[in-house]
């Protein structure tokens, strides 16, 4: 059933697949994000009670959703790395963690900037804000643990275990606003899914928001692909296939951006 996946245990196969996918993430990602951001900031109508301040939702919500989505992706890679001991999966943990941490930070920062004028406070220790802060610490912990060991594979194993254990925080973040009373309001996007016929956001605001989520997802994919390919090349630098790419002996269409960047770096 999973036999088609087996070739990607080989770093070279993953590298080539990544290079093929990269333009399909990068180009639509930049276009969609630009369109959605301009649509949301300039053309969507102002809110009846929050005025123009609500527009930060077009960055806040996509960053928050992706911070959790990236964590689940990282945890999946961690599970594969622990059980099947595939090195590309270990490198994927390292490729995803900083991207996820940045998205988490963006969601916390935009949330604070939004909270100050609307709620009246930058920060409050309610269940949603606190659990999202814990997510940031989990990402930082995974990165720190990965680098804390002399032997890289031991570090990857430790980081993988932490990443998997941290998965319990994801449902807590999502359901915090339903389980406990919090200052943070409940989820707009969940309502879009559960009662699509009557979403709690006017359609002319909802569409740019959904488009922004897609744009953030594509950009997140682009960043992870770039980082993973850099990890692969760095680890495999002495292998003939990597040498061939780094010396520019293969067609430019396959080497693309990452290969080129690395060639310059390493001469």
């Amino acid at each position: 059933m999973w036999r088609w996946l087996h070739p990607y245990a080989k770093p070279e196969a993953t590298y080539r697949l990544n290079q093929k996918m990269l333009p399909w993430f990068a180009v639509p990602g930049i276009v969609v994000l630009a369109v959605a951001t301009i649509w949301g900031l300039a053309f969507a109508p102002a809110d009846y009670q929050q005025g123009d301040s609500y527009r930060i939702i077009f960055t806040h919500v996509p960053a928050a959703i992706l911070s959790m989505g990236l964590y689940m992706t990282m945890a999946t890679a961690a599970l594969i790395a622990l059980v099947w001991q595939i090195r590309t999966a270990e490198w994927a943990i390292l490729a995803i963690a900083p991207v996820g941490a940045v998205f988490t930070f963006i969601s916390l920062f935009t949330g604070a900037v939004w909270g100050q004028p609307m709620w009246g406070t930058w920060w409050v220790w309610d269940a949603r804000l606190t659990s999202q802060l814990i997510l940031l610490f989990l990402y930082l912990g995974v990165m720190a643990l990965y680098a804390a060991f002399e032997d890289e594979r031991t570090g990857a194993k430790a980081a993988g275990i932490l990443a998997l254990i941290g998965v319990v925080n994801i449902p807590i973040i999502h359901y915090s606003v339903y389980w406990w009373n919090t200052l943070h309001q409940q989820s707009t996007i969940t309502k879009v899914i559960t009662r699509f016929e009557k979403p709690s956001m006017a359609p002319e605001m909802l569409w740019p928001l959904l488009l922004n989520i897609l744009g953030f997802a594509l950009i997140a994919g682009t960043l992870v692909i770039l980082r993973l390919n850099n990890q692969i090349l760095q680890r495999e630098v002495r292998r003939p296939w990597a040498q061939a790419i780094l010396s520019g002996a293969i067609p430019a269409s396959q080497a693309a951006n990452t290969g080129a960047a690395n060639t310059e770096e390493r001469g």
Partner: protein
Amino acid sequence: MNPRRKKRLAITSSIIVAFAVATGLVLYALSQNIDLFYTPTEIVEGKGNEKAMPQVGQRLRVGGLVVPGTVRRLDDNLRVSFRLIDNGPAEVTVEYQGILPDLFREGQGIVAQGILVEPNRIVASEVLARHDEEYMPPELARQLKGIEHVPPSQWQTQPNASNDTEEGGGYDR
């Protein structure tokens, strides 16, 4: 799957399940304490199965909806008082001196932090506004909910606000 992988999968999954169960139990035990605020019903009737009543003099947060028609300026400075309600008949009175957040209006969700001076009266040192997950343009809000949001900073200058100086204004009823 070969036996070694199967064993690793079993160990990994059991660690995760054990940790999830432990976290679940901790959160269940703490569930009463993770709430950010008391609701007016919980202050008047007690909280949880044990009906634990907050003590007079206790510092606490209360969260509820501002009862329409209860917002009053107490004197000519920034002192204001209003009542909060959730589902039940229970209401608590909040007194506050300071600038109300822009989202404040009658019918809006509010979280106030302060000291319980009587079983159902709180002198607040901080008033935060909650907002719901609904976003819509002003015309739609007028049409759908009959809400015209006027931030507290514009109450006096608003011609359609109540002409009774005691009354705090808010939306058209």
